[in-house]
């Protein structure tokens, strides 16, 4: 077996090439995304003012990002007052070091970890494992992709690309159990194995969905109960969050829980919503002795300062833009080569991976705008893709042949007479390339379709006859 292409954005073309003709993969993705979309439609109809809720979500996010230093400070004070320790990390390496340092001091045979895209962004699990600290993903989807040694392919449904048959075979091969593709049995197996790790772990790591500035509270949503166990059972809870996760107060949390659950999984509310304000208090029976909150910048300050990137910080990581995107549905999350795939991924990946490595992504969209239409906080995703295209072409990241073609296109189109002449010449010669179905073959389409053969006369010529007649 040949080694698989590394899932990094500079390998976009190869990654797509390896997936685009995989009908089974496309079937898995289409089934899963369609189900999410149908469920979403069913529950957003609870509201006849869903559009206004989206606008409110946008306004609150904009307010928070416009005043981020203020809210960060407020959050830090409130969290510290509740007994949590707040750490700031400027980049991925610093965040990894902080978590690693904390983990090493506290020891324990294993770290239990709940689902978190921010920890994926900083490559935390790999770093801890490389340092010899066994780190177990406890979200079922994450558990599956960890067994498969793959990154998650979707921000809310990490193993969405796999059928239950594939998951059954994976469990049989890696866990030495008998093959079954029954979801309940598979879940029970994972649950039993994970239970031992939950009980043994001294450190639990989680992400954060929302951080409430006024109270220093962390809000984490989930459906499996593993977040409760990861954050409540071990002596130390380490939460990693991007600095854009802040909300002003509990009142705004109500809105955002509605926007997130409904957009992500089509749920009115996820099964578990954990609100964590500092460690266990003396009179409380459960909870960790220590809560550490690692707040990550990693390019977010740059996004905050840039008016074209700022809106991307409003993202609440619901994944609806992926579910609805026909490109995502065709190539899957791994096709993008980035931790953050789909439409939102294509506008934030250049920030995290650098523009040179990510230059295929903003162009890998038909700009249909389904992403912006579904986004619960109204991020104008496809317009930001247009901005990235301009920015990348402007910084010289474009093929020379394309530049030349655009220059010719401009030179011709600015001169109406030349434009007409070019059209006449094209109409004269292209019929020579006609093939079987009367169309013209375009090599990159590999016979899947043809380009129409041009007509004898242009509109301008027809219009002249029309004018003469009337």
């Amino acid at each position, binding site marked *: 077996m040949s080694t698989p292409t590394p899932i990094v954005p500079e390998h976009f073309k190869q990654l797509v090439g390896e997936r685009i003709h995989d009908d089974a993969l496309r079937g898995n993705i289409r089934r899963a995304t369609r189900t999410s979309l149908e469920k979403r439609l069913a529950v957003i109809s609870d509201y006849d003012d869903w559009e206004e809720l989206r606008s409110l979500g946008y306004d609150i996010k904009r307010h928070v990002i416009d005043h981020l230093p203020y809210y960060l400070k407020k959050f830090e004070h409130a969290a510290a007052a509740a007994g949590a320790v707040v750490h700031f990390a400027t980049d991925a390496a610093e965040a990894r070091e902080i978590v690693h340092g904390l983990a090493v001091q506290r020891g324990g045979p294993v770290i239990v970890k709940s689902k978190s895209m921010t920890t994926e962004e900083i490559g935390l699990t790999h770093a801890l494992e490389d340092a010899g600290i066994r780190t177990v993903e406890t979200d079922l989807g994450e558990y599956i992709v960890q067994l498969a040694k793959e990154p998650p392919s979707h921000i809310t449904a990490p193993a969405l690309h796999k059928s239950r048959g594939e998951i059954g075979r994976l469990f049989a091969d890696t866990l030495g159990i008998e093959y079954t593709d029954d979801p309940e049995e598979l879940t029970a197996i994972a649950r039993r194995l994970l239970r031992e790790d939950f009980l043994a772990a001294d450190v639990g790591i989680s992400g954060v969905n929302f951080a409430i500035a006024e109270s220093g509270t962390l809000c984490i949503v989930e459906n499996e109960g593993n977040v409760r166990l990861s954050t409540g059972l071990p002596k130390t809870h380490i939460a990693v969050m991007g600095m854009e996760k802040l909300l002003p107060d509990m009142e705004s949390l109500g809105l955002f829980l509605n926007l997130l659950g409904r957009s992500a999984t089509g749920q009115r509310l996820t099964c578990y919503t954990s609100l964590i304000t500092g460690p266990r208090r003396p009179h409380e029976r459960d909870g960790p002795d220590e809560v550490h909150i690692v707040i990550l910048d990693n390019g977010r300050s740059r996004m905050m300062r840039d008016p074209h990137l700022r809106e991307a910080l409003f993202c609440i990581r619901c994944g609806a833009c992926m579910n609805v995107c026909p490109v995502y549905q065709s190539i899957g999350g791994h096709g993008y080569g980035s931790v953050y795939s789909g439409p939102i991924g294509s506008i934030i990946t250049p920030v995290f991976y650098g523009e040179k490595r990510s230059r295929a992504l903003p162009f890998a969209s038909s700009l249909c*705008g389904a992403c912006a239409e579904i986004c619960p906080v109204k991020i104008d995703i496809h317009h930001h893709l247009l901005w990235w295209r301009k920015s990348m072409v402007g910084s010289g990241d474009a093929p020379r042949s394309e530049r030349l073609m655009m220059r010719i296109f401009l030179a011709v*189109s600015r001169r109406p007479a030349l434009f007409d002449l070019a059209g006449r010449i094209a109409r004269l010669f292209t019929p020579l390339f006609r093939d079987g179905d009367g169309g013209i073959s375009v090599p990159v389409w590999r016979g899947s*379709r043809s380009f129409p053969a041009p007509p004898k006369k242009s509109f301008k010529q027809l219009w002249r006859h029309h004018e003469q007649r009337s």
Partner: protein
Amino acid sequence: MSHTFVRIVHVSLFIPCLTDQLFPETGMNMVRVLERVGVRVTYDRRQTCCGQPAFNTGYHDESRRLAMHFLDIFDGDGAEYIVAPSGSCATMVTVFYGDLLSLPPEYREKAGRVRERVREFTSFLVDVMHVEDVGAAFSSRVTVHDSCHALRELHIKQQPRTLLRAVRGLQLVEMDEAERCCGFGGTFSVKHADISTAMLEEKVASIERSGAAVVTGVDSSCLMQIDGMLRRRGLPVRTMHIADILASEAA
């Protein structure tokens, strides 16, 4: 004896480069329908391309020059409306000539004035002229593909359907996922041809399931993409721009 004063609406034609070069009959059919509903139509032969292909590919400098050429032609042309047989090109002028293209100040003003007058063809008929029945006859099962720019930027969804329902002999059927992109996306269809093809395959499957004999829409570019695969596969479905259907009269 009573006098009826009918105000004649004056429309300036915005014929996209694609229509001019590849689908001239569609442009002429739009003219026929507009004249049939009593509109006075003029056409400025200096127009070429609105600049969208360059804009979408990231070449804003090139696109800006074409936008300025466009605005010089249409600003102050005396017409009340500027009508295009394309939601995509209408979007270029009404949406993208705004902040994203960053035009020089004097052209920003021109863009502001021109933008107000630009309408996509079916939206002009239904929303401006309040016409639903253009007197067309066309016997066939027809399905509508919603073009992305028309749908999501200009909110054109019901207008083509309203017009088609009034066409004699026409049976309107909906395909599943009519709002799903056909995969064209201009230079996207060449830069990422495999993804574009995968998207097109799904669109063609939806069209086949609908049982329609004709697929129509407000943009020739999407229809061109769809037609390319229908013909290559020898499927018994053809594409027609909505202007071509609305210009049809009973034989």
